């Protein structure tokens, strides 16, 4: 049973060794003449400004949160869409109406968010 996994372990070990060799061989054999400009983080040729750990505005969080809420609807829509042909054959228009109601209610929530100014950036 556990023997079945030996090839996977072998692949993991080989890939770790290969990666390590490739990375360390360049520092081991290559010439090293560091200057200040060479050690700078790469910012497309510009001089980097500020720290790398910047705090993101709280407004960004709000928009992301809204995205997650309205994104999760796909969990319900996707299986429905996959099975739609079969459902339509069995139930006709009643395969369509419940999902329509669901989406209308969902979009009403979005409308509420918009009307209350939840998407205003400033």
């Amino acid at each position, binding site marked *: 049973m556990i023997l079945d996994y030996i090839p996977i372990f072998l692949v993991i070990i080989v890939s770790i060794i290969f990666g390590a060799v490739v990375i360390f061989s360049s520092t081991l054999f290559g010439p090293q003449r560091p200057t200040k400009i060479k050690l700078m983080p790469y910012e497309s040729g510009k001089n980097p400004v500020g720290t790398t750990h910047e705090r993101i505005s709280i407004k960004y969080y709000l928009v992301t949160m809204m995205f997650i809420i309205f994104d999760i609807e796909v969990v319900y829509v996707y299986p429905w869409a996959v099975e739609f042909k079969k*459902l339509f054959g*069995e*139930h006709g228009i*009643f*395969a369509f109406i*419940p999902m329509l109601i669901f989406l209308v*209610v969902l979009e*009403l*929530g979005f*409308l*509420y968010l918009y*009307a209350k100014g939840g998407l205003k950036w400033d």
Partner: protein
Amino acid sequence: MPQNNYEYFLLMPQIIIAVGIVLSVLIEITTKKSEQILPWFSIAMFFGTAFYSVFNINQNFVLFSGMIEVGGKPAIFNFIFNIGAALVVLSSIDYLKKYGTYYGEYYILIQSSVLGMMVMSGAKDILMIFMGLELMSICFYVLAGINRKKLSANEASMKYFLLGAFATGFIVYGIALLYGATGTTSIQNLVENFVTYSSNIIFVLGFVFFLIGFSFKIAAVPFHMWVPDVYQGSATTVTSLMSTTGKAAAFSVLIIVLTAVFTFNAPNVFRPYFATISALSMLFGSIVAISQTNLKRMLAYSSISHAGYMAIGLAAGNMFSVAGIIFYLAAYAFMNIGAFTIISIVEGEDDSRTDFDSFSGLNDKSPVLAATMALFMFALAGIPPLAGFFGKYYVFIAAIQSKLTWLAILGVLSSVISVYFYIRVVVVMYFREASEDFKINISPYSLIAVVIAAFFILVFGILPDTLMNVILSALP
């Protein structure tokens, strides 16, 4: 998919509330005057649903291929939820003005939480229980912190959220194990094969997880840590909603999952669990409440001990105890909503005037408030002939029928202890000089809510048999 489109008409109570929520959102978007429209719209909706449920109590059906039940027991619960929510909305109108914090979401969230409770009380599938529970709980988390500028409301909301979500984790894991042991989430299957499953270790483990999660929701010791802080920190009207209807909804679920024990006399394997939490809750709640100086906090501990009395019924596990629990929940809803409404009238801005001192000499300032508050306190203490007495009486009788006399004796003992702190409120109101000088602005709407609650307590107290017969006839 509908096998029969007629099913949608039978689901009318839930549909009224659901359509009402959609309309409320539209009202809130389109008009600036939603503060005047929404409360009355909600009250009309709640009363409509309550009376629709009561008049269709005999139409008992299971709809949507065994998903949800209407009529019968759910109808009685719908009545409790809707009348309770209507009274809370009535008392909120001027309370929100006093704090100057009106958010349109307030009424919409109350409506959504009531919809969640109605789904829970009618659930015939564990999936429905879960969806209803979460709809109710998430609305309550937001409602607890609705006054978002105030630190105490923030704190209450966060504690409620973290511990409520923790309980949800237990419930979901319990459901996963139940599903693994039974292979289905249908309550019907659970009820029919309860005895067989009781010897399955995974089933029992899952069920215990489920019960632990719901013990959080009904506020029973040792899962009560959030109760005092949340009840004290939230807006008073919100507290009255979640301490009464929220508790009723959680108990309705416990009654549903234990139907096999109640109706078909299956051996109650979980009796030791319920007996323990009920004994601990009664004594802990009553003893700790004695030392409280804040009235809201005192009522929070009293809520814990009342959860204990109701859990006696779950431990007893016979048909009569279910009726007793439902009677108790109905009585408790009106007593507690009445008491909290009076606190919300007396309360000043910024959480002030919720101590015992603020109630001193209330009789001189407003005899009506003092008299009704005394009535609610006597009812909570369980003094006959008020509704609270009969709630306890039926539950204790059921316990004695199931040979749990020791639990009934503990219950009586704890009631005697609790009389002390309820009567202290009455003594302070009638026999102390007013220590603070302030004028009470009695809001007419809140006063109507108080009078309705007092009316129901008197009716249930004087004619307990009427309500009891209705409940017993609704049970299968």
